[in-house]
């Protein structure tokens, strides 16, 4: 038996020395506990205590992150469980900024409802914690724990406001599908551990183990692994849950699901591929081809299915599946230490989606539902909102002068550069499908301006939008345009 006691002191030393680098996450944990207590005891005196606390916690965590980012530390801690580098820091900053935006969105949108929001804020913090861990870890066990933290938090969020049957159904579907995928992923991980005897996917012994393992079994394990990742990213063929859940969940939660978790999982997947694809063996070729195939199928299915949607939120679900395809393209050609293209696309993706959902939600509050044809003729009454909405949709198509275009251009450039080096047909197919699906996507995104501006509405509706929320949406839009004209403002920061 492994003698444990002599090592205790060195273990503790290791842990203590790692703690300073874990400050952003520790802040989140402390805030989490604080928020729970606040929502139990303090919210009755001042309604906004838990909100303020969450906000401060997130901002404080952001400060620590900025500190890490400015000193460009590269460190491994907690027995190789976490690995902090510039990529992880930038990714966490994007996650944090998006979370803060969504937090403001949730607060502004639901603060006047009877249901207290304190618990939701607490859950938001745990989800952020899980996502942070995902971006930092290369240890399968840690990754699984992080994925589960995020999943369980998301289950609660989806069901948090559920008052109707549709919403409960969405939450239930999400939980069932999620737990099955997690179980399958865990099985895959146990196989990988069995082959390699090592849980860190970027170590030599792990890769050596994979090389020696039987091909069929490795393929199977990898496919199992992709099941779990695929659920979180909602790529083909694990995308089926997302339209129902996106449509059924409250819009604020849909916003969260569509943006932030994807950022972390994309970062994880790109780290995984970057450390595996450099070795040219059966398993890496297999993985590359599978991802290529998945990316193509995801782009096609997401965009083609979106064509037929009548509901704005459901359409955005398929649109986000389509964008996952583009993200997979970026992941596939990600190379170590060159994360700026990927990070740029991720931040733009998050911004665009947050803006779109804020607009959808603002309209939903007044119209009562999210059918696209109910926007008929509203463009003339609310020119500001719909102009901004159209601009963000243009960005989602990937047209200049928006940041969506720059993002797509950079991803295409990366893929093209790889194509020029390897002359692989798969990469060319990715490029062609990527270009083709942008044309398709124009068709459905433009249903919204089409209805708002081109069709005549029947009734004059008079309602006022929440000025703060509208302002937040406009701010996101302005940033999307600004970064389209001057992308170096953000790109240089990564």
């Amino acid at each position, binding site marked *: 038996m492994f003698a444990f006691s002599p090592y205790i002191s060195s273990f503790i030393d290791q842990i203590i020395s790692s703690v300073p680098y874990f400050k952003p996450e520790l802040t989140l944990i402390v805030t989490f506990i604080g928020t729970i207590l606040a929502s139990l005891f303090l919210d009755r005196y001042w309604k906004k205590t838990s909100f303020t606390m969450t906000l401060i916690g997130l901002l404080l965590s952001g400060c620590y992150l900025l500190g890490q980012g400015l000193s460009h530390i590269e460190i491994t801690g907690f027995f190789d469980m976490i690995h902090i580098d510039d990529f992880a820091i930038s990714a966490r900053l994007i996650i944090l900024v998006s979370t803060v935006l969504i937090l403001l969105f949730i607060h502004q949108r639901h603060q006047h409802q009877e249901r207290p929001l304190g618990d939701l804020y607490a859950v938001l913090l745990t989800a952020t914690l899980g996502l942070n861990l995902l971006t930092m870890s290369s240890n399968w066990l840690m990754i699984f724990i992080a994925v589960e933290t995020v999943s369980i938090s998301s289950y609660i969020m989806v069901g948090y406001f559920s008052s109707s049957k549709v919403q409960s159904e969405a939450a239930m579907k999400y939980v069932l599908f999620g737990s099955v995928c997690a179980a399958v992923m865990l099985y895959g991980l146990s196989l990988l551990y069995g082959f390699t005897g090592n849980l860190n996917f970027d170590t030599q012994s792990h890769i050596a183990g994979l090389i020696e393992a039987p091909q069929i079994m490795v393929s199977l394990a990898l496919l199992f692994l992709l099941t779990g990742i695929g659920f979180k990213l909602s790529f083909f063929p694990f995308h089926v849950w997302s339209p129902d859940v996106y449509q059924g969940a409250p819009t604020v939660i849909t916003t969260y699901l569509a943006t932030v978790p994807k950022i972390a999982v994309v970062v994880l997947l790109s780290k995984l591929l970057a450390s595996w694809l450099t070795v040219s063996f059966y398993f890496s070729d297999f993985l590359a081809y599978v991802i290529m195939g998945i990316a193509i199928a995801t782009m096609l299915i997401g965009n083609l299915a979106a064509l037929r949607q009548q509901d704005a939120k459901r359409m955005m679900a398929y649109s986000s599946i389509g964008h996952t395809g583009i993200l997979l393209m970026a992941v596939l050609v990600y*190379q170590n*230490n*060159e994360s*700026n*293209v990927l990070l740029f696309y991720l931040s733009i993706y998050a911004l665009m989606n947050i803006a779109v959902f804020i607009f959808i939600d603002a309209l939903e509050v007044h119209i009562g539902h999210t059918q696209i044809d109910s926007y008929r003729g509203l463009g*003339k009454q609310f*020119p500001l909102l719909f102009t901004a909405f159209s601009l963000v949709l*243009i960005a989602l198509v990937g*047209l*200049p*002068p928006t940041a969506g*275009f720059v993002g797509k*251009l*950079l991803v*295409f*450039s*990366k893929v*093209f*550069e790889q*194509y*020029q080096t390897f002359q692989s*047909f798969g990469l*060319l197919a990715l*490029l*062609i499908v990527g*270009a*083709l699906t*942008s*044309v398709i996507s*124009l*068709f459905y995104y*433009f249903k919204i*301006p*089409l209805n708002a*501006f*081109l*069709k005549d509405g029947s009734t004059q509706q008079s309602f006022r939008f929440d000025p703060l929320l509208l302002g937040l949406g406009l701010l996101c839009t302005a940033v999307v345009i600004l970064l389209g004209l*001057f*992308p*170096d403002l953000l*790109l*240089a920061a990564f």
Partner: protein
Amino acid sequence: MPILSLLIFLPLLATALILALPTRYKSSYKYIALIFTAIQFVLAGICYANFDSAQTGIQDLAGYQFVEQLPWIRLDLGAIGKLEIDYLIGIDGISMPLLLLSALVMLMAIGASWKIQKSPKGYFALLMVLNMAVMGIFCALDFFLFYLFYEVMLLPLYFLIGIWGGARREYAAIKFFLYTLFGSVFMLLIIVGLYFSVINPLTGAHTFNMIYMMNPENYLGESIFAWDGYQEILGISARLVGFIVLFFAFAIKVPIVPLHTWLPDAHVEAPTPVSIILAGILLKIGGYGIIRICYSIFPDMAALSNWWLGLIGVVSIIYGALNALSQKDLKRMIAYSSVSHMGFVLLGIASMTAEGISGAMFQMISHGFLSAALFFLVGVLYDRVHDRNIYSFRGLAQIMPKYTGYVAVAFFASLGLPGFSAFIGEAFVIIGSFNATSIGTGLPRWMAIAGSIGILLSAAYLLWTLQRMFFGQIRLKGGESWGTALTDLSVREQLILFPTLALALLLGIMPDLVFSNLNASVLNLVSIIQQFI
């Protein structure tokens, strides 16, 4: 003075002004648009007056005039190199006449939108954004900048057709958008490929600079579009693929048969001013793109494939004319006549002779304001009785004598009557394509002959229409009420039409006004392509 930047971004100022003014002052929007466009026209005129016609342009930045260059985006992207995007604008003999044309056509379009009632704020704001994009396209010498303006142009057009258009406007607007976008997303892939193939010899960074892309020495040896031609995409020479994709992206705009089907729909549904801009400026962007980008960056492939280009040109001429012959809707007929007339541009470009390319350029200018005038004339009729069917009218000459006079002049000018500008353009194209065989560019003589048949056909449909609508006894579909509604041309309408038709006559008599500025650049382009024949 950064005259080109001023020319491009003045309309943006107008947009801001229009958006800032409250709706109370909505009658002032058109004056703002008019004043700003008039200033633009004056600026373009100053460019024209100060243009040094001896400068060559094309592949030599020193040969461009009014050049402005500012570093815009500079990024180190690791393996994919340093990103270098410049704000680089300038004009040569190819873009100068088109710039002036755009300013003129814009002025006409504003004049034609004088009576717009439906939300004038949005209308004029979008028109000014479109104006900016168009000017930008003709000035941009950086491919990124070019693409930016090229795509930005689509959005205002989509809304202009879609909101202020006719009955089937939604269909027409999205069809137009999808066609163009389909061409341009694949263009984007080629741009990326060119970016990786070309380096700036001064800094060693990859660049989007079009001028550098035109010089074979700037291509990296192993790159995808390298001039050695060993690189292949799906078994076809990569440079050929690049040329074909870029050609089709622009050919959709020209438009060529069989990719022209968006044009009749867009024209019929668009409001008159937008039709004017579509025919007067946007189709020219297609021709301009082929000369500036396809021919200048891929001259070797242009020399290889000009037979096909010529064939497409001839097919467009004949097919467009035959279609025009069978139309019952006056606007649709003129739209098809545009397809036919733009076919000459393609035929001229394909001939790769100095005469042919000059003729193509001249045809673009001439068709620019003539088609604008034609669409304006259709608009005059449609404004009054909301009908465009040729068979709804007969004997108009007796009710609207002035209108008939202008229509007759415009029709004669368009069908290529000697003395008018279209004659010069078409004659030079046919001379050029006839001579092409003797200098060995591989364009057979029957194409020139087929082109002349196109002129004959255009005479047929235009004169037949004149006869059907304007001569004979008065017979109107709407009866008495139409008789009173069909008033003759107003002063405003004459003010727009007269200068245009006078210009057609002026250029028909003194073509040198355009040719002298073109010549140096065209000769330079021809000499570049000649090396590959």
